[in-house]
């Protein structure tokens, strides 16, 4: 009985988990943690249409079941005449059915936990490290207009990272103030002295997030800050005083303060 119920309703329940998660994320403005804003309306519209079907599915009595493997196996041997036993299904099909139902139940529970119980979060520095920071700047660069000569007042860490790549001449930055917000992730080359103020750049969904950031020169930064902390920084771009490391230009900060994670932590 329970097995049949799970087999029939697992899809509806999983759909409902996805729908509630999507609509709630949309309503609380957090959908951007997972997908690019250009999909917002599409995701929410499909979720609402799906919701109509889910509720309707409960309202209608099920149509006659297609025979599934378990009942097929039970029904096929016609010579099963002395079925006085109370086991309508042969033990093997029965066990397979039980395992399938148990797996389905686990999937539903885990999906509920992941989408409805866990608080939504951004990706962490673990992924930033794993995806090697600024490895994608060269190509992002190719697809964005040149930033050299632009008004730097509203530049994000992404813009600064691209600009540093487009124009490595330190003189250019002499009169430019940097004012950015990002999270802390250690520089792989010079973790003692340099960390990145980073954001994830998202083109489709969090799966393709690329870490991108501005290197900050601050020896002994680990004593004041920890990875994944969000910081607001002001300062200027200067030559990297440390000789090691790949970054010729770094941000030397004037002010550096712990701040709240921005409502939209990713950049697009």
């Amino acid at each position, binding site marked *: 009985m329970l097995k049949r119920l799970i087999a029939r309703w697992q899809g509806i329940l999983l759909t409902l988990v996805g729908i509630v998660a999507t609509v709630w994320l949309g309503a609380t403005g957090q959908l951007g943690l997972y997908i690019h804003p250009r999909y917002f309306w599409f995701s929410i519209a499909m979720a609402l249409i799906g919701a109509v079907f889910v509720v*309707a599915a409960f309202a209608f009595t099920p149509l006659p079941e297609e025979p599934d493997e378990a009942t097929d196996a039970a029904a096929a041997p016609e010579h099963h005449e002395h079925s006085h036993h109370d086991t309508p299904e042969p033990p093997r099909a029965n066990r397979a059915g039980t395992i399938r139902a148990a797996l389905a139940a686990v999937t539903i529970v885990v999906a509920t936990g992941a989408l409805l119980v866990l608080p939504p979060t951004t990706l962490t520095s673990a*992924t930033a490290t794993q995806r090697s920071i600024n490895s994608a700047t060269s190509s992002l660069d190719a697809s964005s207009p040149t930033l050299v000569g632009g008004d730097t007042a509203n530049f994000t860490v992404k813009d600064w990272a691209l600009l540093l790549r487009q124009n490595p001449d330190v003189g250019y930055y002499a009169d430019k103030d940097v004012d950015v917000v990002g999270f802390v992730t250690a520089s792989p080359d010079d973790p003692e002295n340099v960390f990145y103020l980073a954001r994830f750049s998202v083109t489709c969904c969090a799966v393709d997030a690329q870490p991108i950031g501005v290197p900050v020169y601050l020896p002994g930064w680990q004593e004041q800050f920890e990875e994944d902390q969000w910081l607001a920084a002001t300062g200027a771009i200067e030559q990297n005083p440390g000789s090691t490391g790949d970054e010729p230009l770094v941000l030397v900060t004037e002010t550096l303060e712990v701040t709240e994670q921005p409502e939209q932590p990713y950049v697009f």
Partner: protein
Amino acid sequence: MSLTKPVPPHHAAHGSRTPRSRGAVGLGLGVALVLLFVAIRLLAPEEVGNLLSNSVQDFFTLSISVVIESLPFVILGILLSIGVQVWLPEGFLLRHLPRNAVARRIVISMLGVLLPVCECGNVPLARGLILRGLSVGESMTFLLAAPILNPVTIITTYQAFGWDDGILVSRILGGFVIANLIGWIYSRHSSPMSLLTPKFQASCAHAHDEVPATRTRRSVDMFTKETSAMLPALFVGSAIAGLIQVGVSRDLLVTLGQNPVLSVFALMALAFVVSICSNVDAFFILAFGSTFMPGAIVAFLVFGPMIDVKMLALMRTTFTARTLVQLTVIVGLASAALGLAVNALA
């Protein structure tokens, strides 16, 4: 849509209640369940997340993002499949196809232009088409071609790459040729039904028994059945994709990317792992653009929409494991050949 549609007597006989009150009870139950899930979401304590390490948290974030991104496409695919099976007149789509097998597959590989869903939405649609009489080989042609030969994919690929390096042209032609090749190979199979899972074969056998019920009811029933087949596969596939991404270093793939031969295989491996929809994969790979050779990008853009972790999980609802292994090998070899050729010419 009315909830008081007469129910055939043998269903109503399940209980002594009238169909009307049954419907009302079911509806109440459904609404209660929706409220329960909403309540879980609203009441879940914020602190739960702090118990997880960064990597575990990122695993969940990545997997959830695949689910949230794919779910609307899966729902759209199921709706289109319902449209084809329940609302279009019997044989409407198939009657207008050419008789000649080759011409027929060519037309089928263009169906994506009319039905622009990405690959995750195509699986329910292909199932619907098989139930409506499309042969197994033809359904594969559709399944493989539609995610590439559809307007949304073509536009996003154009936006990302323009006409650079022949990437767009190679993607379109490559997808078309591989899909038709696969359709041709499987059209020569002696018993095509054996390529399908026993469960789906059973559905096919019953597809033509018209159930005495209104179209609305059949639509809702199909929605229930299709989600039961697709959604577990989507969730499990997304979890596997998330797990691999946390485990496999991107660095490794990017390092391999500089070599004209290895880069092709590296990007095919990446496509297999990340499992993102064909509608948007061009933007994704653009982020790596200059790291990789154009042939590798073409291999990524051709192989990814056809075969990846999530797609295999979804296709497993319909095809046997053996069939999927063959399919993966053939599509993989063909995509690799295409990528290497583009690199050789570049």
